[in-house]
């Protein structure tokens, strides 16, 4: 669904965009162009909504220097898929207070969307979602990463996320004693 255009095609895109401004062209840090529906971009990303409203969208491709092409491809893919899916009732209700769930559960297609990503792509996507102010995508990606931690031992978490153990043996022993309750099953 995502459009990854070469230079010649970019020319064409501009003409189309000029004639029919339903889409926004985004440019990744490595210069690749992607096209996304204006409506979806404005609805899903507060940053892009601000840019569209403020008229700072460049028809030749709005520069997003912080985002690599792979992550931007996923962002655009997500926007397109989101536009095609019917939001459930849970998504329509808006504000989050402390007596509703702090986070909304990802939908089935969103789960599948993040499940197919590699670690590298997933972390890049979290950063991109954060940069673009895409609350929903941030929810989905953070949820996925937290799933990767649940029920795992500290060693397993270190392995999955490649985190260095910077504790000394004594420190670790002390902490394990303090948090002993976390290592037993109820």
């Amino acid at each position: 669904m995502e459009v990854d255009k070469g230079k010649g095609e970019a020319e064409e895109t501009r003409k189309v965009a000029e004639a029919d401004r339903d889409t926004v062209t985004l440019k990744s840090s490595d210069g690749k162009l992607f096209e996304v529906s204006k409506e979806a971009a404005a609805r899903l990303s507060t940053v892009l909504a601000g840019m569209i409203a403020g008229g700072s969208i460049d028809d030749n491709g709005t520069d997003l220097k912080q985002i690599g092409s792979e992550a931007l491809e996923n962002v655009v893919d997500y926007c397109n898929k989101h536009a095609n899916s019917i939001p459930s009732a849970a998504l329509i209700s808006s504000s989050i207070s402390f007596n509703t769930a702090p986070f909304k559960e990802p939908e089935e297609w969103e789960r599948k969307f993040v499940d197919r990503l590699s670690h590298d792509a997933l972390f890049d996507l979290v950063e991109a979602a954060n940069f673009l102010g895409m609350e929903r995508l941030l929810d989905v990606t953070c949820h996925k990463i937290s799933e990767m931690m649940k029920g795992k031992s500290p060693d397993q978490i270190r392995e999955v996320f490649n985190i260095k153990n910077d504790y000394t043996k004594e420190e670790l022993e002390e902490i394990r004693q303090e948090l002993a309750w976390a290592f037993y099953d109820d």
Partner: protein
Amino acid sequence: MASLLKKFVDPNQWEAEDIVGRLGMLLHAAFLFAGFQPYGACPPSEHLLKQSDKAGRWLCLSRRYTAPELTRRKRADGVALTYVALLIFLIANGDMENIYNEILDVAAISPRLSRSFEAAEPWGSRVCRTLGNRVCWGLLDELCRKNGLPLTSFMSLPDDLKIAILKRLTDGKDLARVECVSAQLRLLVAERHGELWKTLCWWRWSHVPVVEVRSWKDMYMASRRRSYVPSISTHIRCWDLISASRSFLESAKDQEQQQEHQKEQCTVATRAERKGSHRRQVVARNDDYIKRRHGVGAIHSPSSRYRWNHR
């Protein structure tokens, strides 16, 4: 989900290869999936280079990979290299603790590798994803770190994002285990301790009491203890609600009082039964806890505020 292998492997080539060649394809796909890029000589198969020793007893698959960011560097000098021989032992049985603990059981994988591309697909993608996200990603992270390249990983995310992720942990045990992972993470959890434990309270009760609470961790831990000591669990729940959620009590006042009365009676009975048993100490300790909380509402002295923290 299942299209991962298709992305990197040509079905015709798969059909043309033997089992070892197919294993090479899987590994190649795993490296590409993790974010590596092939480097140096390209073997004729475009996957892994196959070499056997003179006697033909050993078969070696090899290929060089690098991080894409490294190839974009103008000057190639000063590049730190990670030489890793990823030894894949195909084991027949038993278990062993490898350096990189990926064990492929020959009995399990060879029948699957012998299948046609279509039939091997869902399994192949799964293996590829697992290898890619574990061994291969770990190696990529190490390579990038040695070269000072920015590879996004959990630890490189901004603190706010890390917290956003940790807030999705629904069990306090998971958060505590994260604290054990590294000192840096423990510090982060300690700094943002209030919001993290408050969210955990939400996950536990599906709402957060509207009252002012000094330490959400204390509150969470108190609720955990309830499930630890079944004999007095109902008793504590009453008091916990009184101290924590007055609004809840007001709404169901009459009913609650009635229940409270019943529960108290029940508790007394169980305590009497348990007299002299090894659980007695636990009961006494919890009683002590109840007394302190009873009628106080907020805990004023700092020592009692951190009471459960330092256990």
